[in-house]
């Protein structure tokens, strides 16, 4: 399945979607499928400043635990409580309902340095 083109991607599989002045961050379907059933989401920082390359939390599946990274400087303004209460939503709908955090960016130009959907899918298939 092709990843959506309305957003950019990190090597570490987080998608970054700009909308209404914020950047929504989640995990790609490829990454979610690799993790298998997700059992726990821990967003360590629920609010406040974050830097590009910083981990904003951890995700656990039946098989493994992984860090999740933010690709942009800014301030975390919202966390998706829905997926914290029911992490399986990330398996069901990683690109929409399964989003993780929203960041108010300080420099949206940082998105330009991230991968396009086409490039991301080329590297992960």
């Amino acid at each position, binding site marked *: 399945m092709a990843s959506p083109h309305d957003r950019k991607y990190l090597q570490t599989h987080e998608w970054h979607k700009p909308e209404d002045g914020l950047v929504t961050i989640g995990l790609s379907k490829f990454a979610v*499928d690799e993790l*298998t*059933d997700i*059992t*726990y989401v*821990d967003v360590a920082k629920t609010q406040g400043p974050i830097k590009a390359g910083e981990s904003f939390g951890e995700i656990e599946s*039946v*098989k*493994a*635990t992984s860090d999740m990274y933010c690709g942009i400087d800014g301030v975390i303004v919202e966390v998706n409580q829905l997926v914290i209460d029911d992490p399986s939503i990330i398996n069901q709908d990683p690109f929409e309902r399964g989003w993780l955090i929203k960041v108010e960016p300080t420099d949206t130009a940082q998105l330009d340095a991230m991968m396009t959907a086409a490039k991301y899918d080329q590297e992960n298939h």
Partner: protein
Amino acid sequence: MQRTPFYKFHSQHGARFVDFAGWEMPIMYRSIIEEHRQVRTAGGLFDVSHMGRLKISGRDARRLLERTLTRRISDMKQGACRYSLVCNEQGGVLDDVLVYRFEYHWLLVVNASNREKILAHLHAHVGDWAVKIEDQTLSTAMVALQGPRVMDQIARFSTEVPNLRRYSFCIKKLLALEMTISRTGYTGEDGVEVILPSLMAGMAIKLLLREDPDSQNSVSIQPAGLGARDTLRMEAGMPLYGHELDEATDPISAGLLFAVSLDKDDPTFIGQEALKKIAQDGPARRLIGLKLDGRRTARQGASVYIGDSHVGNVTSGCLSPTLGFPIVMAYIEADRLDTDATASVEISSKRVDAQVTALPFYKRP
């Protein structure tokens, strides 16, 4: 990478594959948790063809096995299976195996990752004995059918199999198919493991999964992957080589004394002296179960504390799909068990409280 005769079957059922000890194996088809529940509530079919199958025959086959297996096998009757360990001189575990007693030969089922090592170990101890060792891993296939409804399914084509006792087996001829069917498994459920010729694999799987037109529930047995096999065996408190068992770990620490015959003398087994001493002195470490607070899972290597002292490490862990809370197995210093202090496990630099609990975590009703 090696593929089993069921590779096409897995692909057709949407399997996601992983490299497991050089074999391309299905980790899951739809969801590990769903497949886990399928096994606990109805039935699952696992491809375990990657496990090594070694045929041991010849006049001195029995002696070679007594020498290399920790558990006595001379008293086994034809049609019996027994769980045993293979140890080094220090009592460290080289592998955990299942031994089958046939009329004129024996069969060892060994872990995929240890097959070459065990073959070499057996050859190294043959000496002057008349023993033939044949690796039948590639010429045969093996599946495990596990779950509360498996025996009903099998009863449709065999009256003998559902009457097998635990850890016994029979040879079943069906059309051109000869299968070895044992009432054994690695999930904590009732069920069987079936060994059959590789060439018959496609035909056999159709037969085993054939639907009963009279059945109320449409599907009683579904394919399940190695992911579910791992979480099922954890709930059942069963050790996995590379996690609870390795060459630096003895079977007594692992709680497997039942599979060690310390009084063997015809001949003695490799590691017997070392294990006698450990049994007399008591092991330094013990395998325990821990139930964790919260929802987070500890992974292999995580530190275990009692009070403020670091007392051991986690060997396996998962969020138990059946019980709904995180479970881990861990080795801890044996003399730290008798204390009222709280146990805890370190996850992401935080301590999570834990309760020591007896293994297994789950027993079938």
